[in-house]
């Protein structure tokens, strides 16, 4: 169920609008809707999540109905429909990662950050969640952090600690 969060109107930066334009050159005339997924990634990379206002603006830009954006944003798991921590740690929990200790990594992150899955730390820096197969099964356990989806492989509790320290210092 798509729950719309109360938010303020948003503005898109000139850089972002320029990126939209570049994306649309990839598709034939009249097929601009194909740009929707990459455009939503760009919006999320700049704003951290997809608010209803942001989605409405995307709809207006692509000259499609807002529902066409909502239904896509709510279908794909990478789009956040709620504000998240600055860094979202997404830990693979599927099969192969499961048998090499993904559960322990998630438990460790939960206790280290002191927040449950999909909750945000008080300083607004972190949230975390378990996600399904990230196609890195030979290097498990793994986690990724958007918006560039940097990968952290062969995780141990110590590696997670170091990572969290590094991100805090950034």
């Amino acid at each position, binding site marked *: 169920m798509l729950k719309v969060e109360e938010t303020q109107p948003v503005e898109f930066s000139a850089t972002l609008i320029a990126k939209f334009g570049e994306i649309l050159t990839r598709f034939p005339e009249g097929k601009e809707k194909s740009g929707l997924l990459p455009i939503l990634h760009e919006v999320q990379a700049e704003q951290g999540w997809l608010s209803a206002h942001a989605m409405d603006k995307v709809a207006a830009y692509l000259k499609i109905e807002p529902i066409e954006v909502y239904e*896509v944003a709510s279908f794909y798991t990478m*789009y956040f429909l709620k504000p998240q921590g600055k860094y979202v740690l997404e830990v693979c929990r599927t099969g192969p990662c499961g*048998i090499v200790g993904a559960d322990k990594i998630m438990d460790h992150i939960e206790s280290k950050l002191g927040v449950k899955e999909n909750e945000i730390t008080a300083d607004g820096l972190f949230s975390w969640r378990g996600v399904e197969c990230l196609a890195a099964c030979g290097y498990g356990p793994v986690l990724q952090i958007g918006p560039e989806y940097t990968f952290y492989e062969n995780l141990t509790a110590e590696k997670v600690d170091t990572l969290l320290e590094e991100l805090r210092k950034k």
Partner: protein
Amino acid sequence: MARKLLLEHINVPGINTFDVYRQKGGYRSVEKALKTMTPEEVVEEVKTSGLRGRGGAGFPTGMKWSFLAKPEGVPRYLVCNADESEPGTFKDRYLMTYIPHALIEGMIVSSFALGAKTSYIYVRGEMMPQIRILERAIAEAKNAGYLGKNILGTGYDLELYVQPGGGAYICGEETALLESLEGKRGNPRIKPPFPAIAGLYGCPTVVNNVESIAAVVPIINDGGAEYAKIGIGRSTGTKLISASGNLVKPGVYEIDLGLPVEEFIYSDEYCGGIANGKRLKATVAGGSSVPVLPANLTLKLANGEPRLMSYESLSEGGFITGTMMGSGGFIVYDEDQCMVKNTWNFARFYHHESCGQCSPCREGTGWLEKILHRLEHGHGKMSDIDLLVDVVKKIDGNTICPFGDAAGWPVAAAIRHFRDEFEWHVREPLKSQETNYGLAKYAEPIAKAEVTTDN
């Protein structure tokens, strides 16, 4: 040491750049195809090679190409399926990360063969680093005159674009992928019409896996007949296998099809055996969707002959004693792994990833997850085991796309081969929370093939 067609230069420093790739003989196939061959001749070479789709279905690539409709004045598209999401499979990520130009080169030759002027590589959104790598490789190739207008002065034009997905396993299904590429939810389409007739934007389209497209390069360089000499029977050529789980050396390996499974798992050239000195309990040979096999049936066929890494040998015995090649996602379980827990894990995955379009799949995958959850957590009943089989039967074949079947097969296979372990979870609800069922009899030689008509 087996020959390498795709990964030969994987360890050459800078092979991800155009210049080094070119020095190592890269883009020869583009010159050969565009300058000396007709598109039909390229298709014929691929047919001769016997190459079968490397994404999971194993359908002959050349034949798929020959089905493409060619109405006058209608654009045709080639779309590369790089939505690698099948649990256990990570070969395409590896290829795109380290030798992106192999995919770009294959895309140019394949697009030429199909008469496509615009082609897309649909990459799963989580692979943002790989998307950047491919975009850079495309820019390099374009700069060198291998993409864009009038490629190498031959008059052939091609634009190649990378499209990110949004994180949905179902978009690996080709019609869902096309829906997604059109900016919609990834709901699979009803077939027919097949994409070869009405695909992207309603135009004739071919969708091929990353590895299939990269394999076109050696096929054109050396000829389809040379490629067909590698392998065994109808399993020609080399295949990338993603090995994961409790192995000494998990990773991506290029094998000649026909390699014995035992050699793949235990030889130092490949996976180096089971990690931590443990014993092999089970394998999933081709990605999470294919039936799981106990150790004894992994290594040997029901008649006692060695099982080989080929499409035919892996599926020998059908779903009773065999499995499938699938995408080549080879997951290995040691004696400490719980098959009920693993089956529940996969069921959760399928429930999470079901697109929700067909009721049997949307509801059925939820049932499977729920029942397996209670079995794994010590709340199961003996009747739950047959209930699972019943739910699987009611999904199987009753959905638009093969996702529903793929969600049910691992459950049916786990119960078929590991029923003892499921029953033990019901009989010993407390003990099963603290300890594992262990290796049991799953590695013992099989006296004779057990043939049942159940599941």
